[in-house]
């Protein structure tokens, strides 16, 4: 990554103005994925002093876009599935820097936390575009660049997350998240999808029969389906079901 300048705007209005007036200006989250890009940015916009890194717990939970993945891992008032989803994202150092905002905004198909947020039916609040559902954003993105302010969702009664990584800190070959009776599946390797009103008394094979998987250098679609079925069975077991034979 190359950059001509880095600015600390005095307001979000100013940050947004720079963002949309320059084609290759971009918002800095933790900066980790930006760092890996072979791009030349005219301006990096550091809004860390203007954006929230707070987690507010209530019937509705809201998380500021600058909140680190490490804070999400260690805040035990958050739904357990959310803690679990970030736990093996690289090492502690990376999780201290990587933000939920950068993860969501990037719409990375491999993302472990985005799958959980799709299951939770989270709402995203943007500076200019206002509120948009995570599910819609995940599918369609935005027409114009924007600044993500916060992520919120209703506290679920039950949530859990599982994934399969070949190495402890690797990217997931498949990830799954449950929020009440909604199941989301990500790293298929396509973007996460979700199934609602899932009857978890059915077998993983039945539950996943309509789900599409794909192949890439990490694994074939058949391998991913097999892993997904196995990890779903594990999740169902943690919910008190299956595992008789």
């Amino acid at each position, binding site marked *: *990554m*190359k*950059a*001509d*300048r*880095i600015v600390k705007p005095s307001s979000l209005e100013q940050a947004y103005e720079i963002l949309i007036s320059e084609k290759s200006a971009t918002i*800095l989250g933790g*900066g*980790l994925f930006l*760092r*890996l890009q072979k791009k030349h940015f005219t301006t*990096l916009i*550091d809004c*860390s002093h203007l954006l929230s890194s707070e987690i507010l717990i209530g019937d509705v939970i809201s998380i500021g876009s600058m909140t680190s993945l*490490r804070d999400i891992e260690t805040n035990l008032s958050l739904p357990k599935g959310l803690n679990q989803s970030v*736990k*093996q994202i*690289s*090492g*502690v*150092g*990376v999780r*201290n*820097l990587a933000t939920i905002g950068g993860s969501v905004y990037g719409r990375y198909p491999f993302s472990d936390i985005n799958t959980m947020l799709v299951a939770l039916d989270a709402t995203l609040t943007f500076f200019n575009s206002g509120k948009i559902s995570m599910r819609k954003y995940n599918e369609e993105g935005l027409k114009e660049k924007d600044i993500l302010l916060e992520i919120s969702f209703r506290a679920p009664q039950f949530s859990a997350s599982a994934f399969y990584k070949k190495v*402890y*800190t690797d990217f997931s070959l498949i990830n799954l998240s449950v929020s009440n009776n909604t199941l989301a599946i990500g790293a298929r390797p396509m973007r996460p999808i979700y199934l609602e009103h899932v009857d978890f008394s059915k077998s993983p094979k039945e539950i996943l029969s309509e789900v599409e998987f794909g192949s890439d250098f990490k694994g074939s679609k058949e391998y991913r389906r097999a892993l997904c079925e196995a990890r779903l069975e594990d999740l169902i077991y943690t919910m008190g079901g299956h595992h008789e034979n």
Partner: protein
Amino acid sequence: MKINLIVNHNHYDYYPRPDEYLIESLRKLGFQSVKKGCDTTSCGVCSVIVDGQLVPSCSYLTSRCDQKEVLTVEGIPEEARHIAEFITAEGVDQCGFCSPGHVMAIHALKLELKNPTMEEIKHYLAGNMCRCSGYEGQHRAIKKMMEVE
């Protein structure tokens, strides 16, 4: 842009490029303990502590360090020696390239967790790669050190 970079309690007037990362700045200032491994945020070899938090210095923009307290191995010589004693006692001091980052991760672990279990130690240090040791000895050493303390 001028920043006040504080490294091991010393203040520096520093003029980073907009895309300059902390590892480069620290090495320029003479903190040669900070090593570059993968340079893609994957190995943890470049780990330092900024404002009490472990971070990969290869991916932390120096411009973001204005007024922040950066700690490298040079800033904790006694602690580094203490950790090294336990590591060498387990016979897992080999090429040593990962050691400065590893020591900073262990220091951060101690700041954050009191009486960690072996599982917690392994989880905390999972982002610090070592090509020589095989990890088991390192984990044993840290557990022993924390039990003694």
